[in-house]
């Protein structure tokens, strides 16, 4: 029941905010819902440590099809749900003080997205998973279109069609599996592939993989990403990079690995190659960007590539690393995009050419930006390091040469991110940055928690690794 409430609360309050017009009420509701969600989640963790089964919620959704509205958590789900709760809360906090029209509706859409994401991360039924997987895109699409810049409709249309095509292939795979199992419970579906012909198994693998590869996105399915990330309003971008991209990696771990073991053994090597190509490719392109949001977008794309590669090595350290990195990247991506938004609001520019010398004028921003940025680079003592280290080790163990190539991405990340920092914060001030003021309480409320999380989970990674180690029991590891 607790899981269901965690899902229902943002949904109901989101729908309410879509009707509501008062800005003040919207802000109050947002803060309250975020806090209640956080409290609920913390309570959920304590329940989980005693009895995970108590968190199951099941309802006979379509009884003659044996499709259930089945929510439940294991270690991975719990971690991702927590990420969704905390990150959405931070995004809501960040958004409520931005100057958008109809802010109440904007916040409502974010809450609906949060509900869909919690649904994705806790669904224990294939069609329920699919339902939320698709549903999460709808509010983001609306957000981008209603508050985005010029030319956004064409970009979001591309994103929408792209991702829906992928998801539909996943639906076909689910329907095929359903036909054999006569139920869509994920635990039951996982028993099906053992009895299937290898050819069918391979088809299932590709159907599922393409869905997740487009959503994440992985190389070469990233065509929609740069424009969609850079032209969407920042809260939508934060949702896309911080949370929606994680649905892809989560899907690989939760859906692809158990449901297509033969495909994994035969093709995961190929996918890892492509993911590593994406990692290097994204990093190299990020180096050449002058548009801040595009730069962060490519950096996000590169990180996702490494997460997918590590997850697909299926070694314990790879899986733990990529799960850990999903959390870490969630925080740092949201932080980076938020800083980009702050810089844009203060200076009116998103181009590195126009910026510089902000560190002296906005020291608080500079410090927090540096922490978030170093977290993304993967400096030791930040949470980025733990994840990157585990993942790179896994890739290195998988194939040495691949590991060596992948490790070079750390250097590339340092190059493009430090270049970003240098061009914005250091150097002489420009007309754009001469008269800016430092960030105030509204921004600190968002950035300080992010910085604290980055450092704490970097110094004491065990608090998260501990949780994700539950994963080892729940995920069948195939070798």
């Amino acid at each position, binding site marked *: 029941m607790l899981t269901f409430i965690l899902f229902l609360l943002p949904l109901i309050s989101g729908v309410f905010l879509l009707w509501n017009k008062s800005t003040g009420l919207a802000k109050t509701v947002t803060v309250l819902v975020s806090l209640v969600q956080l409290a609920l989640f913390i309570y959920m963790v304590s329940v989980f440590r005693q009895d995970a089964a108590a968190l199951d919620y099941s309802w*006979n*959704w*379509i*009884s*003659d*099809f044996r499709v259930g509205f089945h929510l439940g958590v294991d270690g991975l789900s719990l971690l991702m749900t927590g990420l969704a709760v905390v990150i959405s809360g931070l995004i809501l906090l960040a958004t409520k003080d931005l100057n958008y029209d109809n802010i109440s509706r904007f916040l409502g859409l974010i809450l609906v997205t949060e509900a869909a994401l919690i649904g994705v991360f806790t669904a224990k039924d294939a*069609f329920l998973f*699919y*339902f*939320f997987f*698709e*549903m999460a*895109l*709808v509010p983001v699409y*609306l957000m981008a*279109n*209603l508050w985005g810049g010029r030319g956004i*409709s064409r970009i979001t*249309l591309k994103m*929408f*069609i792209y991702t*829906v*095509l992928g998801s*539909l*292939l996943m*639906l*076909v795979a689910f*329907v*095929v599996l*359903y*036909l054999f199992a006569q139920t869509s419970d994920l635990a039951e579906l996982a028993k099906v592939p053992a009895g299937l012909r290898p050819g069918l198994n391979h088809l299932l693998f590709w159907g599922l993989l393409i869905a997740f590869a487009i959503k994440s996105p992985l190389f070469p399915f990233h065509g929609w990403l740069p424009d969609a990330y850079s032209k969407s309003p920042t809260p939508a971008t934060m949702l896309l990079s911080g949370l929606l991209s994680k649905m892809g990696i989560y899907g690989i771990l939760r859906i692809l690995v158990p449901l297509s073991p033969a495909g994994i053994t035969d093709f995961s090597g190929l996918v890892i190659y492509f993911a590593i190509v994406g990692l290097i490719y994204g990093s190299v392109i990020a180096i050449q960007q002058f548009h801040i949001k595009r730069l962060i977008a490519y950096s996000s794309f590169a990180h996702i590539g490494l997460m997918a590669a590590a997850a697909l090595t299926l070694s314990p350290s790879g899986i733990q690393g990529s799960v850990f990195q999903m959390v870490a990247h969630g925080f740092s991506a949201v932080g980076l995009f938020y800083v980009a938004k702050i810089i844009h609001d203060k200076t009116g520019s998103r181009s590195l050419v126009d910026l510089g010398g902000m560190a002296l004028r906005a020291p608080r921003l500079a410090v927090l930006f540096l922490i978030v940025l170093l977290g993304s680079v993967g400096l030791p003592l930040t949470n980025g390091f733990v994840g990157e280290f585990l993942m790179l080790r896994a890739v290195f163990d998988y194939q040495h040469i691949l590991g060596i190539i992948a490790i070079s991405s750390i250097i590339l990340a340092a190059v493009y991110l430090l270049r970003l920092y240098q061009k914005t914060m250091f150097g002489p001030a420009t007309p754009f940055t001469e008269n800016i003021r430092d960030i105030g309480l509204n921004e600190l409320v968002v950035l300080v928690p992010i910085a604290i999380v980055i450092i704490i989970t970097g110094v004491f990674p065990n608090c998260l690794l501990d949780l994700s180690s539950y994963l080892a029991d729940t995920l069948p590891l195939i070798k």
Partner: protein
Amino acid sequence: MYPIIVLSFTGLLTLFFGLNNPRSKTILPATAIFLVIGLISNFADWNAPGSYFNNMIDVNNSIIIVGSLIILSALFLVLLSSGLFEDENAHPAEYYALMQFSVVGALIMASFNNLLMLFLGLEILSIALYVLTGSDKTNLRGNEAALKYFLMGSFSTGILLFGVALVYGATGSFDISAGTVLGGAALPSKIFFYVGIVFMLIGLLFKISGAPFHFWTADVYQGAPTLFTAFMATIVKTAVIFSLYRLMVAGFSLEYVFWVKIILVAVALSLVIGNITAVVQDNFKRIIAYSSISHAGFMLMALTGITARTFTNLAFYSASYVLATISALGVLIVVSRNSLKDGRPNENVEVFNGLFKRNPGLAVVLFISMLSLSGIPPTSGFWGKFFVFTDAIRGGYLWVLVLAVVMSAISLYYYLRPVVASFRSVGDETPVEVGTWQKIVLYSLTFLTLVLGAAPGLFRGLF
């Protein structure tokens, strides 16, 4: 069975309402009440399955639900039409009477047990619609559409009748299950029977606008007044798909291997032609026309793998299609009335420009209906699609499924065009006025779409 009698009678009664004053204000509420009476009378047979008129009409709970769906769609359309027929050339009494007759035809088609009743129902349904298509006498396109629809429609009913005659010749009976007597017979003695099946399929595929018998659809949909376009797209399609179901599953199930090939060809062609052609259309009604062709393809998909659930699946698909199509065309009715082009309501996609600013409620209705038509959660359209997919895969036709999926992705392009237009900011931000009843109908349709999307079990539990 009762609504057939009730609505035939009230249809005649409606004609008298326009006797003194052709544009009397009482006609619309009276028609709405008549339809409600018809709806209630429909449930007189609830839990009392049986047959009427010497075994010519079949009644059971599933048929009653389909009948209710048809009557409800008509009710929604009648309520949507408030304020629509106010110009001097209009004859609302006749329109509403014809709509009721048409509904009678649809009800017969959904419950026939005898091939002659099928023909009778189809003709009652169609002849009323030929007239309604041309009801706007000042519209040249409407006249063209009516003539096209009439010529091609009567030709196809002729083919259907030929098919009926051949089946009768082969089996010696008009009964729907007549084919079973030929069950084990050798091929030479079944030639007429097979030809009969093919001809009947052609006749019905024409009516459901399944490719390759779809050529009339776009012109007729575009030319007809929008309200009757919605009528054609929803009620006719529901009636015909269920008569196809009865015919193929109840009547000719022994010949499954034979007719499934024809259905498969029709599915593939409908999906490809419908979706690809819709991409290049500018007129919203033409888009809906081609979308209706592709939806015919999806509905026919359910017939390729028959299970005990197929009927429910089709009912769900029809329900969600009806809800979405009526609300999409309802929004068009409301919006296009305020925006004229060459003296006629502008029905191009650009009419939706800036709708999110001009009337957010309508824009949301349009958005949800388009999501439902393209099958995106959390709308009912998604489940409809999923249910027919499970049927197709049970027949073992994975390629149909993959084709359908690719075409669904393409369909998003044209379904989202009106939505994208509604986001576009234009200088003109005059609010769009909506009548009370239209508002109620459109909002409740959207609400139902979302409810069926969140809890599809509610509807399936009825069967």
